[in-house]
């Protein structure tokens, strides 16, 4: 038995805005019967200010699919299209007081139907997901584009989460290594972020603090990039504004060593530590 909130129960037992708008200005259809859920969203839009005057849905699916669709229509009624576009699948889940993790794909389906309807209204040809990006999950027809998007939007970290949110990997499981690769790629990019986001040069550092910060910047922000190219960097000494470093591995004999030192090492250290730093290479 799923642990559905009272709000989810209320929305599947008494779904709001069921049906079709006959003279709809936009219709979004997602999912299909083979996969076990499908949603058809129709919107009546006031052309003057692009406001959603009415929203109705038809859903084939489980309790949480019906509840997510019902919640979506309640959330978007009265909103302008640009306001509605801001709604994420997490917002739909939050509106319902949360969904079981395994059912998060229902909220993703709601959000996708809304996107499809808005795209249709704006005259964009709705690109079918299967054609946009490479097919990763054969069982449920999920592309790498969709997986990447949902990972980013929901900050997912495990394959299980990806399956819960997109269904990908929930059938034969053959695509699980591919999902792992996508996760790794996105997470890998993320790991570099904190160092880069770090505050601009700090004033009034003691010498020890300055040394630590230089060391830290090299380790976190400079070395990983060099290592990716088969090289490495070593901090030799700090003498006033002069920072002495040695390049190792592939970097040591690289024709672009000078560019690396000025463009990457010095630029980073000036950015994170002190604007007056001068980097010199020790052979």
């Amino acid at each position, binding site marked *: 038995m799923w642990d559905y909130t009272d709000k989810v*129960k209320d929305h599947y037992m008494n779904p709001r805005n*069921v049906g079709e708008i006959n003279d709809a200005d936009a219709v979004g259809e997602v999912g299909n*019967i083979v996969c076990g859920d499908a949603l058809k969203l129709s919107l009546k839009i006031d052309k003057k200010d692009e406001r959603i005057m009415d929203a109705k849905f038809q859903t084939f699916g489980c309790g949480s699919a019906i509840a997510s669709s019902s919640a979506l229509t309640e959330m978007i009624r009265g909103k302008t299209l640009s306001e509605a576009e801001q709604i994420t699948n997490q917002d739909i889940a939050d509106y319902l007081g949360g969904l079981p993790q395994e059912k998060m794909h229902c909220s993703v389906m709601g959000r996708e139907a809304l996107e499809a309807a808005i795209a249709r209204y704006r005259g964009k040809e709705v690109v079918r997901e299967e054609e946009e990006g490479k097919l990763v999950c054969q069982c449920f027809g999920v592309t790498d584009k969709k997986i990447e998007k949902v990972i980013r939007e929901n900050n997912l970290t495990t394959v299980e989460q990806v399956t819960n949110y997109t*269904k990908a990997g929930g059938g034969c499981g053959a695509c699980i290594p591919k999902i792992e690769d996508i996760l790794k790629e996105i997470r890998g990019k993320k790991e570099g972020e904190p160092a880069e986001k770090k505050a601009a040069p700090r004033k009034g550092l003691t010498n020890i603090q300055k040394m630590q910060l230089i060391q830290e910047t090299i380790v976190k922000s400079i070395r990983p990039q060099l290592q990716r190219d088969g090289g490495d960097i070593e901090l030799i000494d700090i003498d006033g504004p002069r920072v002495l470093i040695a390049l190792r591995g592939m970097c040591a004999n690289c024709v672009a060593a000078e560019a690396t030192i000025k463009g990457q090492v010095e630029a980073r250290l000036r950015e994170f530590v002190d604007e007056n730093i001068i980097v010199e290479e020790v052979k």
Partner: protein
Amino acid sequence: MGEKKLVYVDNNATTRVDDEVIEAMRPYFTELYGNPSSIHSFGGQIAKKIASARAQVAELLGAQDTEIVFTSGGTESDNFAIKGVLEYFPDRRHIVTTKVEHHAVLNLCDKLATEGYQVTKLSVDRKGNLDLDEVRDSLRDDTAIVSVMYANNETGVIFPVDTIGQIVKERGITFHVDGVQAVGKIPINLKDSPIDLLSLSGHKFHAPKGIGALYVKRGTRIRPMMIGGHHERGRRAGTENVPGIVGLAKACELAKRFMEDELTRVRGMRDRLEQSTLSRFKNTLVNGDREHRTPNTSNTSFEYVEGEAILLYLDEKGIAASSGSACTSGSLEPSHVLRAMGVPFTAAHGSVRFSLSRFNTDADIDCILSELPPIIERLLEISPFGREVLQAKV
């Protein structure tokens, strides 16, 4: 007022423990708590009770007392049977089973496949029946065991285990039958049968959870799985679940007493429920061979409606049933049984299993028949595919 009456039609999942079973068990929790292995007479009397319980279980199956080994339930019995035989025949690396087995067998076989065993999973046709030629062709010189269920938990479809067993025994291979869904529901006679091993589970026929048995035909080559004391004649170590064993024996006695009721009244209620539903909606079909089925089970698909939604709506009305839809299983695909049968996805997602027991009444069936149609109609209204179905309604 206020208290919702429960209509329980999920008896293939588990059953209500019969009051007589509880009464039989009660003294073995309180004054008769001795250990049957003890030398003193306080424990000795318990050993005697277990002996008579074993005889009662054997009687329901047409077996001999010594052929019954008590276990913790169906899953343990299945594991014991398959692993026990494989261990006895370390050189035989091939297992034959079917695509529609319970997970206790299927997941075990999948694990064994990762350990170097070769597993053949026999297909079923649209009605859920096996092809006997395929059974015959699957057998090899290094086949250690053939494991086939007696009756399917989802559809109730009964496999011709005696015929299959003859094919298997001609090749001298050990034959295991998962009888969890059959014992207590249909007559079983293991005397002179080709079945070597048969699993049963108490809670599927009004005994409590946590007790079951494995029938081991005399002379069957099998190694124990639980190692420890000399319980169950060295075949299953661990101090006996005395109240459970006593309860299982009573449940077997009652099953024998109520077998006729199961085959007539229970079957009649199941058929009425099914017929009325079929005639009411055009988008309805029955999954599984309707001739060869356990009398209590009906697996009905409502096309273009999703099974979990049906169950949730039924639950609101106090009706407890089950579904093979993807959403209810926690997996994302509909039941492996319905998929193996080739039930179209449109129907597999909308399957509902009603499984009755002798505790159901005509009033229960009336209740389902009055609550179900508006639920299906409502869900068809919500479904984007529903309009055509509603228009085509009989």
